[in-house]
């Protein structure tokens, strides 16, 4: 008994020793990729794949500082790129051409160049979803121009620009969830067949000496190809129509004065009307709640009257935003609002009829809006201070 036990123990220990640490990967042997940029090249079938790699020592600060001496050249990140026929290819060539193993798990952002986005990004997306190392919640953006250039732009506040871009998108998404997209959401939209996706557009702003990054509007995709853009007001209209806007302001400019209203919350309800399956009318009930944050002008006006005016103007403003966005999309024939998906989910029977002709139906949808605006709070003061005297 004892001997056999001893033997068993030895065998088990041997088994563990033979496991061989296949997956071992010491920290100093990996290159932590923080950003990925994919661009098209001159050659129609080739892409330029660039990665941003964080240099840990330089980021942690003191280590790099001491060793660097005074040579100002220790940038916290480095860029690498490769040109290849597809993503996997490019990754492989980068892997084999490097003293360290590329480590993609901590990738913060994926940037596609505008030109490539127009050619279609489906196959690259598939590679990114399929690979074990990529993460679904990674935001992705379309560069207004060259994607690599975006990654190379240094940010003032962030050591790693990819982290900064990710934070910018997250910050922007506080206004509306729709302003940020990630791999999962994008893929989910693509799988809806009729729906079109949007992705934020990022742009380098040249300002005198420094470069700055800015998110300007949304890129609109039809299937996996970028077909158009929504500018900033239009994207707000998009958010209004979906009822997913908050933490942003709306400016009312009239002859009597100027008002700044903060959006507290919003909601929307969509009511499709099927006219015997020939034409589709959609009625959207939109509700918005506001706080007044700033009033300028508006002299000799009663409070009720002022509120009335503001509500009316706000409605107009929202209407304008939404319609501008909706028209653009109808022209592009891109259902970014997932109207089709909404009908599929809630009116599956009608959907069967509409589906084959959706591409014809969508541009002809008659959208009617019913906007309800409530001003909840006027802040700590009611009327602007310059009116106070007259009133009293």
């Amino acid at each position: 008994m004892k001997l056999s036990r001893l033997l068993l123990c030895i065998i088990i220990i041997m088994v563990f020793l033979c496991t061989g640490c296949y997956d071992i990967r010491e920290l100093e042997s990996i290159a932590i990729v923080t950003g990925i940029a994919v661009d098209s090249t001159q050659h129609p079938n080739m892409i330029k794949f660039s990665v941003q790699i964080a240099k840990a020592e330089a980021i942690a600060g003191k280590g790099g500082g001491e060793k660097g001496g005074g040579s100002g050249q220790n940038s916290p990140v480095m860029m690498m790129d490769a040109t290849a026929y597809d993503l996997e290819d490019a990754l492989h060539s980068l892997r084999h051409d490097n003293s360290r193993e590329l480590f993609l798990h901590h990738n913060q952002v994926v940037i596609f160049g505008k030109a490539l986005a127009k050619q279609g990004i489906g196959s690259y997306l598939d590679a990114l979803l399929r690979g074990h190392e990529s993460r679904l919640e990674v935001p992705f953006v379309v560069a207004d121009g060259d994607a690599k250039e975006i990654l190379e732009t240094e940010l003032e506040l962030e050591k790693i620009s990819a982290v900064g871009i990710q934070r910018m998108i997250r910050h922007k998404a506080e206004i509306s969830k729709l302003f940020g997209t990630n791999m999962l959401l994008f893929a989910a939209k693509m799988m809806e067949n009729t729906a079109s996706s949007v992705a934020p557009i990022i742009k380098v702003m040249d300002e005198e000496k420094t470069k700055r990054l800015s998110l300007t509007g949304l890129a609109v995709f039809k299937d996996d190809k970028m077909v158009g853009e929504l500018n900033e007001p239009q994207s707000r209209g998009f958010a209004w129509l979906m009822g997913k806007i908050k933490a942003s302001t709306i400016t009312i400019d009239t002859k009597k004065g100027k008002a700044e209203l903060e959006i507290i919350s919003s909601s929307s309800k969509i009511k499709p009307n099927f006219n015997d399956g020939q034409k589709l009318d959609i009625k959207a009930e939109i509700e918005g709640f506001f706080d007044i944050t700033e009033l300028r002008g508006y002299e000799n006006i009663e409070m009720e009257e002022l509120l009335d005016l503001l509500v009316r103007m706000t409605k107009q403003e929202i209407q304008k935003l939404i319609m501008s966005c909706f028209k653009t999309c109808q022209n592009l024939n891109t259902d970014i609002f997932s109207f089709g998906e909404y009908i599929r989910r809630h009116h599956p029977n009608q959907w069967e009829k509409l589906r084959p002709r959706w591409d014809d139906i969508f541009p002809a949808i008659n959208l009617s809006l019913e906007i309800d605006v409530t001003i909840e709070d006027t802040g700590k003061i009611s009327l602007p201070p310059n009116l106070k005297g007259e009133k009293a």
Partner: protein
Amino acid sequence: MKTQKASITPLQFMFSITCFLRSSSLLSSFFAPISKTDSWLVVLIASVVCLPFLWAFIMLMKAFPGKNLIEINDAVFGRIAGKIISAIYLWFFLTLTSLNLRDLGGFVGKSIMLKTPQIVIITVFILLCAWAVSLGLDIVTRYSVVFVILSSIILVVTIAATSNHMRLSNFLPILRQPMKNIIQSTNIVSTIPFGELVIFLMIMPQVNIKPKKLGRYFLPGFFLGAFLITLVVARDIAILGNTITIFAQPSFETLRMVSFFEVLTHMEILFAILLIILFFFKISLLFYVSMLAMSYLFRLDSYKPLILPSAAIIVVYSLIIFKSKTKHLEVGRETAPFMWFIFEFLLPLLTLIIAYIRKLPQKEKDARSKEAASA
């Protein structure tokens, strides 16, 4: 037989059933692509569909208290036929063990140990299970309650943490899939995790429980398990929506979305750990049942000498059983549900009917009461 002595408490028995079912939640990749966003309903439907069969299990357990499946087969079908059926069951148990081991190997290989060869992952794991099995049933089932509570806590926490990614509209439209898909999916769910409860017929004699009260522990355990699976599937659908169909491990992808305070973001390792633990429970239990069946079939005093050789067989079996992961998925979706149906539902029903015709339980009871009287 010596190996029968160990006894488990009713509570452990109940939670063993729950834990056994819960550990099958990885199998959602078998049926999710078929029934898509209705998968959560499919689990509920399957749990109702299974009830008559579970009733058959319970009736068998009640009719032959103190006897396990092999002994019941002997008693009902006679010596030779019984032995043959038992031998087929033994093959079934061994296959289940191997399949689950393979699932585990595949999962670990896909999620946390990418470059480690399957054989290493599997061998190390089966050695651990063998150790637990050699120590007896109560060691295997000891932690069922802990595991269930642990997995439930993780489930609740992940639901809370991913709630901002959830879209309830992902569930819509309800039941618009073709009927065929729903039925196929229901079949998969009811045979693969639910029907496997047939193994509990093997360990019945070691449960410290009065036959009358069996249902009172069996069914709540079953419903709790089914409920947990439903929750898991529903969570995955609410988050992934229709993309659930394209992922090999929906839960793993779901947990990738978890983030606490934007710092603790990569929570899928929790899921991996939990799943390994649950797999440990399931494989050990299946392994134990196989060993018990083997020792009864060959009339051995103890199954202990069989453990290591069987472990070796199981490892090899699970490595060669399918050529590839795609083949595995295909069989899991198309062949297994029908094969398993025989072992899990038809044979027990048949046993029950024959036993009823031969009025076997009655005789058994008489004999027992006589024994009791003479004692």
